[in-house]
């Protein structure tokens, strides 16, 4: 009897899934016509399964074929470099971490999208993500002001403050609005090793650089004075930046596990997913995994708010997105086919399907759609709020080198190898040197007292 019921249930489930797939396939997506097969370079990132499903819908609807070359994170950049430096690119579309895109824009390795089709326009609903898809070759800076559209964001990741709704409620704590609120909450909730009050990345390199910069922006500090205007005076050793670094060190030391200096993204996600952290600073893309019972012990218990304000009263968040661009050395028909997919992918329906399958849509209207009312998309309001103040950082040609400097010096300050003032003074000197060698107009602030 039970087995019989199971068969019926399974049949219903299969039928329902089939119908929903058919319904998706019948939705009015953009008609892009018959196109030759294309190959896309993509990383095996947390959002890849969602992208793969949407590609499946594209193939089903259009009959056009897409081959996905899925590469671990560490190998994408080299594959992309080899592709664009060869005679003809094996890829027709490449998804690149926003930090890497600069090298490709600056080297002229990508075709501006309007050069492939002059009529191509991004819909007005598409979020700007700090103009990360634009490149002003003269300023060597990512900006729509005088810049060309080289790529667009297929996944816009920002950090959110995740918190255990149940734990905070039980302790009578409201969701934090400032970093001081986080400190105060963690003082009450921190109960190591059972529960850590707050976790964020402290590991050397991109991890600490990226997470700390949100606090840096919230303290109204910056790396360089005004890169958009060509003023690369290094300001990383300002009193505001020191305040941000001291606050970040305080947060990680007082609220996190003792291995805060080597805590990477995987560790932070693991601590939250296992219920060992009450709050954490994590990318939006991780939300889906917290709702997966196979990966998470806290399904339905984690809520999100925009990253808190600093003592300056400002909010800060860094955008870390993935952009899709078309290699210049792809053939013209392949470029057109790749652009056709991009045109299709940015439609409301495609983005809606992308979100339904666990991706982060890049259109504001999807965030106000029926999805926003569903509990599993409860991260959407915080994400949309964050878009109001989130910024692209290190959006200049020297970004990768600057990240190396910051990633090391911030980590050294965190683990106590040097004081925060010395770390920032050292970083300022090194970054100024990088800018000077590039021929930028640069300088630095007077050193902080060490």
């Amino acid at each position: 009897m039970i087995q019989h019921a199971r068969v019926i249930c399974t049949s219903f489930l299969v039928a329902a899934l089939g119908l929903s797939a058919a319904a998706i396939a019948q939705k009015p997506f953009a008609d892009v016509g018959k196109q030759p097969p294309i190959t896309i370079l993509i990383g095996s990132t947390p959002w890849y399964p969602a992208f793969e499903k949407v590609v499946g819908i594209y193939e089903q609807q259009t009959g056009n074929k897409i081959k996905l070359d899925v590469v671990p994170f560490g190998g994408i950049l080299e594959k992309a470099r080899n592709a664009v430096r060869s005679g003809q690119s094996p890829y027709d579309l490449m998804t690149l971490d926003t930090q890497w895109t600069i090298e490709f824009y600056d080297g002229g390795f990508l075709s501006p999208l309007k050069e492939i089709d002059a009529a191509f326009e991004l819909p007005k609903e598409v979020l700007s993500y700090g103009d990360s898809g634009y490149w002003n070759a003269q300023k060597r800076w990512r900006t729509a002001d005088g810049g060309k559209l080289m790529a667009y964001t297929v996944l816009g990741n920002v950090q959110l403050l995740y918190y255990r709704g149940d734990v905070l409620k039980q302790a009578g704590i409201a969701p934090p609005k400032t970093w001081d609120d986080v400190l105060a909450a963690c003082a009450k909730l921190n109960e190591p090793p059972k529960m850590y009050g707050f976790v964020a990345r402290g590991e050397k390199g991109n991890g600490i650089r990226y997470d700390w910069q949100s606090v840096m922006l919230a303290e109204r500090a910056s790396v360089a004075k005004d890169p958009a205007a060509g003023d690369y005076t290094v300001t990383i050793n300002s009193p505001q930046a020191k305040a941000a670094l001291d606050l970040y060190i305080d947060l990680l030391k007082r609220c996190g596990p003792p291995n805060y200096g080597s805590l990477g993204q995987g560790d932070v996600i693991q601590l939250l997913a296992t219920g060992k952290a009450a709050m954490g600073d994590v990318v939006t893309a991780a939300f889906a995994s917290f709702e997966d019972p196979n990966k998470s012990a806290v399904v339905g218990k984690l809520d999100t708010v925009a990253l808190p304000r600093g003592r300056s009263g400002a909010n800060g968040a860094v955008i870390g997105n993935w952009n899709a661009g078309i290699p210049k050395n792809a053939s013209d028909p392949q470029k057109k086919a790749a652009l056709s997919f991009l045109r299709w992918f940015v439609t409301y329906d495609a983005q809606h399907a992308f979100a339904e399958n666990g991706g982060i849509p890049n259109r504001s209207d999807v965030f106000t759609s029926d999805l926003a009312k569903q509990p599993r998309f409860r991260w959407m309001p915080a994400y949309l709020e964050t878009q109001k103040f989130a910024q692209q950082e290190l959006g200049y040609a020297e970004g990768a080198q600057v990240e190396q400097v910051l990633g090391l010096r911030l980590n050294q300050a965190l683990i106590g190898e040097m004081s925060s003032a010395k770390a920032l003074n050292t970083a300022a000197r090194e970054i100024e040197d990088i800018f000077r060698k590039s021929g930028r107009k640069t300088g630095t602030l007077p050193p902080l007292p060490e």
Partner: protein
Amino acid sequence: MRENSSLTLVLNRTFRHWSLLPAVALFVALTIYPVANLFRMSVSTIEFAQAGEAWTFTPLRNLALLRADEVVPAAVRNTLIFVVAAVAIEMVLGLALAIIVAGAARGKGLIRTVMILPILVPPVAIGSIWKLLYNYDFGIFNQTLAALHLPPVNWLGSTSLALWSVVIVDVWHWVPFVFLILFAAVEALPVDVLEAARVDGATRWQLLRRVMLPLLRPAIVVALLFRTILAFKVFDEVFLLTSGGPGTSTELVTLHLYKVFFDQNQLGYGSLLSLALIAAIVAFLLVGRQAVRLARP
């Protein structure tokens, strides 16, 4: 007749020379050319743009970068500590295991097979496995310590411990390699010589010190040579375990090379660093060889 044979001789000699050509060509293509190209890169700044590669002759710029690079001293210091510590421990443990197993009455084949396993595991898997073992909150080491009511250890997050945690992984990975080389050598030791020493009243220590070690010297030198070269080039495990952190506590020259080449895309400076590493390995080996010579009785 004589003319005929001298012609054959000349032809043979010519053929012998020309028959080497494919091997020489292969050697030039696979060894000389890449090294020569590395030299060329090390005195250049290489930039890629859509128009192609742009090479600029800038030897002084690359040298200036090397001098100004504040990570290099820490990387060199850590690399030397890592090489000396890891290789020394591996040699001692490998030799001890080889002698113990060779003396076992049964099960040598099984032990040898089991010992090979760590060598077969890809370094990437080793890094991932040990990262889990070392995990502060969920790793088996700290779970065991907790079960024994001992405080957890910050294996990879402590600046004073991280490099040694990496050394432990390398030892686990490579002791079997040393063991296999030395085990074969111990098995091949002349039994009559060992017996004669025992009959003459040599103690175990004297047997080891005065008889076995001198006879094992060639195998020990080979194992030492291979391990030293490989230890200088270690990358995968450290990259996965710590990425050089925290701070510069596990920053090795190879890791720094990777960052310069691939993260910073500085091919010229990266090549100069590569040459410096090659020179360091050669110097280290030359000094080692000289030390072995001097130590000979």
